[in-house]
């Protein structure tokens, strides 16, 4: 197939049925994306997404619908289901509408710490991780009105100034233009400049938790437990599930290895395979059985061998220590 002339999902589906000579069998299609997640192919959008992530080959996993469980596809599913990816599952009636299961979606946002925040505030966690959507919002300087013992006072504040259409921030529905930003990952932004707050957000962008005071206060979460005051720190959390204060939570978060981030990728170069004559890089297992002649221009080009290109006049041809990377 040509990447450029890929048709619709239906065409592809039929092509697969034809190729595999299973014209009447309902199948579920899946692929693993670059993060190792097993994701479904069931409409045009995720079909094109799958194609664009092909690197260079797209490995498609086909399962017979009857024997597959819809819950196969999920975030981190590969890790979770490593052992029994294709384990038999009980038969379920075929749904009439092809609507993805909740597990088919990645979580992109959540409202957290509802019980410890004043009702007027909202703490939103944006899960950038694994998504290709831009965070998609802008912030600006502004003036915030606070009620202080001395009366109403105006203090400088940071506000959301714009949401990008189709961006993550907009699609969550939890953030809106003119919402005042109070904290970024547990750190108060009071007294910080717009540039500082920008940098803080970018630095936390893989796991951004922003506490806002929404401009629209009508959609606030109403706590069911008891009618507490409209402001001030809530006291209704039970000792057993004592939620740490934002700062301490942040710090604990910060001192322990953060769960979903910070895994700096270390590529060990295997010293055993260094001295392969020819200095031709091995594309790595993910690339599949590529003919060796193709590899220098493969997508792994950035990890190319050095030895074969260091053509300096003074050097003999004996330098074959080009590094080979095994990924």
């Amino acid at each position: 197939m040509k990447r450029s002339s890929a048709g619709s999902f239906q065409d592809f589906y039929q092509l697969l049925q034809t190729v595999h000579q299973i014209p009447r069998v309902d199948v579920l299609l899946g692929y693993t994306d670059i993060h190792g997640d097993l994701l479904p192919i069931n409409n045009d959008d995720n079909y094109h997404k799958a194609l664009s992530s092909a690197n260079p080959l797209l490995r498609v996993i086909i399962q017979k619908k009857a024997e597959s469980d819809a819950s196969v596809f999920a975030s981190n599913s590969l890790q979770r289901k490593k052992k029994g990816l294709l384990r038999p599952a009980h038969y379920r009636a075929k749904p009439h509408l092809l609507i993805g299961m909740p597990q088919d979606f990645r979580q992109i946002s959540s409202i957290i710490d509802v019980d410890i925040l004043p009702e007027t505030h909202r703490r939103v966690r944006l899960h950038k991780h694994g998504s290709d959507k831009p965070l998609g919002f802008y912030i600006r300087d502004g003036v915030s009105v606070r009620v202080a013992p001395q009366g109403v006072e105006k203090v400088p504040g940071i506000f959301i100034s714009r949401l990008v259409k189709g961006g993550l921030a907009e699609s969550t529905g939890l953030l809106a233009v003119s919402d005042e930003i109070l904290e970024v990952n547990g750190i108060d932004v009071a007294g910080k400049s717009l540039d500082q707050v920008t940098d803080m957000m970018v630095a936390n962008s893989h796991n951004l938790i922003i506490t806002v005071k929404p401009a629209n206060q009508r959609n606030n979460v109403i706590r069911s437990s008891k009618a507490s005051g409209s402001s001030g720190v809530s006291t209704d959390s039970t000792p057993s599930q004592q939620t740490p204060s934002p700062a301490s939570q942040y710090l604990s978060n910060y001192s322990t290895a953060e769960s979903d981030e910070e895994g700096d990728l270390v590529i060990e170069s295997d010293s055993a395979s260094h001295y392969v004559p020819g200095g031709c890089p091995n594309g790595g297992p993910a690339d599949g059985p590529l003919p060796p002649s193709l590899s220098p221009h493969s997508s792994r080009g950035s990890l190319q061998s050095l030895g074969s290109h260091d053509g300096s006049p003074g050097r003999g041809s004996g330098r074959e220590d080009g590094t080979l990377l095994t990924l």
Partner: protein
Amino acid sequence: MAIGTKAGAVKLYGAPGVELTGLHKETATVTQLHFLPGQGWLLSLLDDNTLHLWEVCQKEGCSHLEETRSFGLPGRPGCSPGITRVTVVLPMAAGATVCLGTEGGAVYFVTLPTLTLLEDKTLFPDEILQSVPDEYRCGKALGPVESIQEHPRSGSQLLIGYSRGLVVLWEQSTRAVQHLFLGNQQLESLAWEQSGKSIVSSHSDGGYMVWAVSGTGQRTQQPAMSTIPYGPFPCKAISKILWRTCESGNPFIIFSGGMPRASYGDRHCVSVLQGQTLATLDFTSRVIDFFTVQSAEVPEGGFENPRALVVLVEEELVAIDLQTPGWPTIPAPYLAPLHSSAITCSCHVSNVPLKLWERIVSVGEQQSPRQSSAAWPIDGGKNLAQEPTQRGLLLTGHEDGTVRFWDASGVSLKPLYKLGTANIFQTDCEHNDSLNQAGEEEWPPFRKVGCFDPYSDDPRLGVQKIALCKYTAKMVVAGTAGQVLVMELSDEKSEHAVSVATVDLLQDREGFTWKGHDRLAPRNGPLHFPPGFQPSVLVQCVPPAAVTAVTLHSEWNLVAFGTSHGFGLFDYYRRNPVLARCTLHPNDSLAMEGPLSRVKSLKKSLRQSFRRIRKSRVSGKKRLNASSPSSKVQEANAQLAEQAGPPEVEMTPVQRRIEPRSADDSLSGVVRCLYFADTFLRDAAHHGPTMWAGTNSGSVFAYALEVPSQEKFSERAVEAVLGKEIQLMHRAPVVAIAVLDGRGNPLPEPYEVSRDLAKAPDMQGSHSMLISSEEQFKVFTLPKVSAKTKFKLTAHEGCRVRKVALVSLASAGSEERLENCLACLTNLGDIHIFTVPSLRPQVHYSCIRKEDISGIASCVFTKHGQGFYLISPSEFERFSLSARNVTEPLCRLEVARLQDTSCLSNSSTVTPKLPQANGTHVPRSSEGQHSPSDSDRSPVEHPAAFSPGPIDSPNSSMENPLDITGDITVEEVKDFLASSEEAEQNLRNASEDEARPTGILIK
């Protein structure tokens, strides 16, 4: 000698090391400065028409400069305020009064030191006009007072010159006109001949006249002599003239300006005329003022015998020896122009071994032999500072391809040696020299003076990075066109060819074409090199993008260099490339286009962005140590910059886009740092040479090196094997990499251990690696790279790392107690100190104004906790983080005061300066950028009488657009690209935003 600046600072200089600074409360340009001879007082006039009295006072044995009084001339009722604008200030030799000449022509008298106006003594022009003949008067006013000079012999007689040309000798005691000189040419300046028998006046037509002064009650219509030295064609005005008698022959007549308007009107000249000998000193920047230095007391009938002429031009200070034939210049021990070509990078070397120091000093002396045996003429005061404990060398790389070596051990920066790299390359501008030489016989006899030369032959020559090994005297200089020069210090001159090696950093990467500048073509054949640093190898990076990182390991004979495309490793002993590695991201296209297409628009948008940022960030927090004079100077400079900026209308509120860094950001491949270390890369049992490289996109590459032993260098080649590749998840640019030994100390420099200058590193314990990115610091274990500790600076503070250095801070009490710390300068200009390897934040100070982007970009740390940054294009500011290593001027001026001054000190509120406060700003040597000023010597000698006022039009040096020198990081460039992009988007969204109410709804 006192120099006043445009920002209102007053700086007093004397003997080397003697330096006092004061700052006016008002941010106004200092237009005149006058010493009150022998009393330790200084009068300054600001352009807001206020007069200020400064006092040199002693505190804890050291002298300080403090403002004690100020005075504003009251306006005259019914007259425009301009009438009382002070044009001339003359303190009387007796020290009790000051004469003020004004725009309206009146002369006021003010007592000292109380600064009260003596109203009954005021001399209005009407009083003079009464004695002026009718045919001269013809109904016209006399114009502003241009000059007042005291009679050299009789203190009660004043010579007053009015703009229209009338000069009056006025007897104060009898209030009578002694002598009238009815000049008809517009007057610029006046000077007495020392005996008081004649005067000289200079005029706006470029001529000067000598008038004979005889008895009383006379009128002189015609001068004794009148000449236009550079006539007959129309000439520019002579703005200041001096007459100095000389025992050995004809008197000196020294004047500024007067050049033929059409042919040389754009030159900045001071002419020295003695008899038939005329020298036209040709300066590269505007002449601000000049004075001569002579002995304090001139006996009756004796001669003044000026020793030297000191000229302050806008960009430098030049002293001319008037007693040596040929009038050579005297090298200045301070205020040397740092920016004779714009500074592009700087590098500090601490603890320079004496041997290397002496060799550098010696080659520097051979390079510019002293033409004058005269000592520096400004020698007042006593330097009380201790001899510096160690020799510090500051290297500055310049736009014209030179590297200057400065003695940074003490308070002032003294030039030691200048290394040029331009002669290795073929540039277009070589024949210019011969043209200049041909013109030398012309008239007027121009003589180039001073070394300020802002014009670069070829921007590709610019020096980007410098590395110096202080033990082997090897140096690497890397430039804008991808040239990396390996140099070695030689005491002998030499003639040899420079071998050239080309390293392709693209590594056959396809689809990229370099659209930037060409490489510099090296000259062929053997070249002549004077004693000094002589290049041995030229490594040329291809494509010839600017070198962004360089490091040198003289023990392994290796130099590593990086550009925006990749990095390379070169064995300069065998002259072999060892390694080349492309760091480009496949999607990165901008890096390949080169600077040509974008730079022009970039520069403009940068400038605009700087202005915008400057405006938008005015409401910054106050600096902590606002009491130190230098930080006040900073603030004043900032205020001034804001005043100078054109009014800009903010279209929409500034907004910032929040997006994470993505892998395919442009310029992601830029190599930001390179590092050599002997450490454990592959396994925990064997350590060996390694090389580390960090890029803009948060990648770190680690190579294990096979370096043959010293004896086998010539037989075996160095080999490099990729050991590890680390991708930081947050993808921020890697600013620095360092390896810490088992005890958590940074690894020593090459040769440091073998020369017994450092303790051997702990090779038993496990090493760790410190990676500092723009956003966080992380310590990893070695050889298994697992994160040990980290500090997320940006996530915490919202500031980004600009410069980091491992510094060792010694306790103030005992030198034995040393602490290694990580010093970090952020984009907000703050300095943070962290412990290593635990990365606990210790303290932080605000240091540089955050708007001062070139200051932040130019900052360098020394190993002992000091630092330098450019406070202006021409001035380095030194700061100290160390309680032990503080360099500040301590000096004493002996002052014999006539009056009791206890009454004066009531207004002084200066807090006692703690000698060892961390982060104390310490004034550094500085030059250029000084604004209109008068100057004098220390009160030990007789102060020369000066004609008042700035010589040229008002100084505008501060209005120069921000000079973007130094290594501005890609991040900064991107910031500004982004902000301009955003501005566009803001515009686009303006209509949309307007439609929506922007008010905040609170329910």
